[in-house]
């Protein structure tokens, strides 16, 4: 129980700081910390495979991608002088248009949390556990490749398409001036 509260506290605090932090590099690192805490929660939920996959895929690959992009773009901090200046040159006005969406977002988030707390306060959930089949990796593999094999195949095509899309979208525009001398 103590472990649950520890991990939950780390996850919530880290996520809050991700949203509140100005520096994008710190945001990415805090999100990695949050993923670590969630991975611990998955271990508490008897799901070691998901826990390790979370670290490998989310914290180890997706966040590295985010970090690369932040570093390559030299992502500016938000609300700095140059950001406001740039906005003025681009859109002709520096009027802050975001008061509305900010309030809407905050109200929506609060309403959602309140609603769930109310729903849960009405009594314990009546869920009857099914057969207690061991959640071993072998079991996961068995179910994945029999019941969900179509989704598995479609997901692999999805990743292929995403990879191609990312490469094409992030390409520099090809032109005669961008060819290096000595290209074969």
């Amino acid at each position, binding site marked *: 129980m103590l472990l649950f509260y520890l991990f939950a506290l780390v996850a919530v605090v880290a996520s809050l700081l991700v949203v509140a932090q100005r520096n994008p590099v710190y945001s990415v690192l805090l999100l990695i910390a949050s993923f670590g805490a969630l991975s611990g929660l998955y271990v508490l*939920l008897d799901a070691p495979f998901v826990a390790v996959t979370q670290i490998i895929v989310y914290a180890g690959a997706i966040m590295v991608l985010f970090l690369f992009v932040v570093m390559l773009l030299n992502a500016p901090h938000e609300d700095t002088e140059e950001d406001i200046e740039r906005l003025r040159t681009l859109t002709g006005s520096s009027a802050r248009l975001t008061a509305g969406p900010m309030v809407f977002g905050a109200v929506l988030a609060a309403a959602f949390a309140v609603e769930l707390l109310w729903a849960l306060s009405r009594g314990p959930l009546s869920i009857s*556990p099914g057969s207690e089949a061991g959640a071993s990796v072998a079991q996961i593999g068995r179910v994945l490749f029999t019941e*969900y094999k179509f989704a598995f195949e479609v997901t692999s095509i999805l990743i292929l398409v995403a990879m191609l899309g990312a490469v094409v979208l992030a390409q520099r525009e090809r032109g005669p001036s961008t060819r290096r001398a000595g290209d074969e």
Partner: protein
Amino acid sequence: MPTLEHYLILSAILFSIGTAGVFVRRNLITILLSIEIMLNAVNLTFVAFGHALGNVDGQIIVFFVMTVAAAEAAVGLAIVIALFRHRASLNPEAFTVLKW
């Protein structure tokens, strides 16, 4: 012992934080990070219910959600790079060309 309700409340809190982040922040990368927080909250819900129901389907759906999140992060970041090349700004308010 943490019950199912504990995990669901935690997941709801994380989801709300992610939602607030998407609306409040004015940096494209932080918006994408908030979307990842939301996806993780949903993953936690799936695994918690899978544990409560005693079958393995929750973990399998989490596997697919992670894959889709990876694909979406890759394409989203490629779009962010392309946008940055045009306007040199990561502020979503800078991309107002299609506004009436």
